[in-house]
């Protein structure tokens, strides 16, 4: 099982801050995972419609969209950061 966490407008669009899911086999990269998220219903389709702008962290480290997701226990999805 993998914990998925959401922040800012991604969290609001998905409608939850976290969930634990069994990822389907065949998802290799972050990009595969983002494409799968788009298929999970209306709120996910809305949250991930512009998947190229979504940032992803694997076990609390930034990961590019071509990074492999194997072994990650916690995967976070969020918009570009606006702190500082």
């Amino acid at each position: 099982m993998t914990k998925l966490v959401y922040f800012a407008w991604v969290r609001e669009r998905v409608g939850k801050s976290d969930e634990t899911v069994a990822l389907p086999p065949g998802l290799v990269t972050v990009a595969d995972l983002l494409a799968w998220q788009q298929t999970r219903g209306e709120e996910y389709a809305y949250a991930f419609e512009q998947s190229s702008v979504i940032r992803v962290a694997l076990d609390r480290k930034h990961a590019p969209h071509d990074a492999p997701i194997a072994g990650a226990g916690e995967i976070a999805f969020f918009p570009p950061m606006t702190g500082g």
Partner: protein
Amino acid sequence: MPASSRPPCTIRIQSEPFDIPAETARLTAGRTDIGGIVTFAGLCRDEGGRLKALELEHYPGMAEEEIARVAESALARWPLMGLTAIHRHGLIKPGEDIVLVIAASAHRRAAFEAADFMMDYLKTRAPFWKREHLLDGSTGGWVEAKAEDDAAAARW
């Protein structure tokens, strides 16, 4: 302190305000080798009078870890004698502090550059998101990331 030992590095994420003189004193207490301290504080603007507050959401755990990674890069790159980074979260009103970076070194250049680098990287890598609360009582939108911040970070 021998030159080979690791400089003190403080990273904190907190909702309460910070005390800049106290944080500066913590870096300089008992030391006579520091020649320059650069302090940068980022404040909440009222955006021309329309903003009631900023709400800062963060990713607990990753926020500390990511700022620590940025600090490690700064410590590896400049001969620093101390480095502090504090970032607030929660509801912050115009005029209040949001973020603090303090860099200490023997000579000014390293402290100026390290503080500038820390802020550029904090803005583009630390997992924080700002949302506006407006004076008319409505909740405004999420603040959009600026391309100029990415360009600033790419300078380094």
